[in-house]
């Protein structure tokens, strides 16, 4: 079930973020097996998905909408370069606006309204109290650049990937809640370049297979995969840019506070072909759940223990879990009776 956006929570300082019972129930738990293995775990994102689930619509709008949009505003005010679009990505940005407005107004008619009169569009975002009229395709008629304008109205990070020479290039995006990667540095990179630091997967041929698959995605056939890491505190902006501000928190986990401090961070990644520009929209929708909330589901608790216990060393390092991984495994053990 989906709870309407109402509350305003924080993802920094006092960390007032919490999940309702409904949000816990619909949390996209990412482990299908007791042992975590790298794979090209891509599957069709057939819409609409199960009612109320995170897969129901192309853009999942949930109870955290207002909070995440307020957090995004804070990040962009601190550092406007967290959003960028190379000049040749203008058509792709407008594709993104079209796709987002068209689907969101159809999927959430109580929250978003769109009227089209030729290229004159009238958009109302009742949640953020926006009421804008603009000429489709003419960026000068928007209050801010198109990537930022739409990016400020959807939950999750968005990257727009330009497709050329059989490869995908990270040429536009709004990235304010990344799991430790920098849009400013990775901008313009090819698919394999921006995955350069990922351990093991290159040798396994994961990226060769993924790239072949992704470049062949047709219009109206989005695909999805889940990715995961752990985060200390309900911090959305775990970017390299702000790492000096949050790095020390990785050392703050103790056996006593694991349940409330450590969050499973799951990214629902959706790739969707843009009709005019042929770019790929890559949306990275982040969900956070505290260990205390996660273990209210007994199956999740047991599996979480087994996955964490068997995690290969290079992944522990790459995901930045080195300093609290063992504390977490020990704490989870009590939910796995066999152990």
């Amino acid at each position, binding site marked *: 079930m989906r709870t309407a956006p109402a509350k305003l929570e924080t993802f920094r300082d006092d960390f007032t973020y919490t999940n309702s019972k409904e949000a816990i129930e619909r949390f996209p738990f990412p482990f299908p097996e007791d042992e975590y*293995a790298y794979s090209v775990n891509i599957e069709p994102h057939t819409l609409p998905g199960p009612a109320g689930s995170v897969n129901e619509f192309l853009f999942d709008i949930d109870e955290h909408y207002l909070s995440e949009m307020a957090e995004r505003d804070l990040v962009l005010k601190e550092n406007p*370069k967290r959003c960028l679009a190379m000049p040749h990505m203008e058509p792709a940005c407008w594709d993104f606006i079209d796709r987002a407005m068209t689907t969101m107004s159809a999927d959430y008619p109580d929250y978003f309204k769109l009227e089209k009169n030729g290229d004159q569009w009238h958009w109302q975002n009742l949640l953020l109290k926006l009421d804008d009229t603009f000429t489709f395709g003419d960026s000068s008629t928007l209050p801010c650049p198109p990537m930022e304008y739409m990016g400020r109205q959807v939950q999750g990070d968005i990257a727009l990937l330009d497709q050329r020479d059989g490869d995908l290039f990270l040429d536009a995006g709004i990235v304010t809640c990344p799991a430790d990667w*920098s849009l*400013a*540095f*990775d*901008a*313009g*990179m090819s698919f*394999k*370049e*921006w*995955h*350069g*630091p990922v*351990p*093991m997967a*290159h*040798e*396994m*041929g994961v990226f060769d297979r993924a790239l072949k698959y992704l470049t062949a995605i047709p219009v109206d056939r989005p695909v999805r995969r889940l990715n995961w890491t752990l985060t200390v505190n309900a911090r959305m902006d775990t970017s*390299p*840019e*702000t*790492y*000096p501000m949050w*790095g*020390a928190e*990785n*050392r703050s986990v103790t056996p006593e506070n694991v349940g409330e401090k450590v969050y499973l961070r799951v990214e629902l990644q959706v790739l969707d072909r843009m009709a005019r520009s042929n770019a790929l929209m890559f949306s990275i929708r982040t969900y956070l759940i505290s260990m205390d909330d996660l273990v209210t589901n007994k199956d999740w608790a047991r599996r979480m223990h087994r996955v964490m216990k068997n995690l*290969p060393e*290079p992944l522990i390092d790459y995901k930045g879990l080195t*300093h609290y991984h063992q504390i977490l495994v020990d704490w989870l053990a009590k939910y796995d009776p066999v152990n």
Partner: protein
Amino acid sequence: MQTNADKPELTLNPGVKSRPQYPPVSLNPAAQCQVFIARKNTTGDKAGALLKPLMDEAEKSEKSLNIIPLVVGEDGDVISMSQLPQTISSLPLASSFYLAGTEAFIWDVAKLICEAGFIMEQVHLLPPVNNERRLFCTHCYAITEPVTHSPAVCSGCGRHLLVRDHFSKIHRAYVGVQIDAEDPADLPEESEELC
């Protein structure tokens, strides 16, 4: 059912795949114009030495109509970086470029060549002449160069940055991340020389 036998063998390679590789360069005999660009080097002419075998080969070839050596520097007898775009844009479309110098230099020149309308397939990069790197601070976005040791002090924010092997062709730089953000005790007493 997936069994352990189905799982691919994990071979661990600590190398970061975005770090440029510099395979051996051979002369493109079909090029109408062979362009050799080297950085003027104050500590011996390493860049020139790298290019010399290719230039010798080009001179022997009957097909190459033009051999153009360009040395980039600040003195009067060489061409400056700011003059380079104009020179490059006057070259025939069927040119091949051979670049030698520091890593930041060869990628800077490669960028100028591509901006002039050539494609990367026409550009051949010789291995960097030394271990100097350009460093992009992921916290304040300042550039620090040359960097030969890790950690390095950022020229912008002064933080001690771990120099990673993750390279951006847009910035023509490696990324640096604060090494002691989690604990000031993580700052090593001595820095390590980069390779």
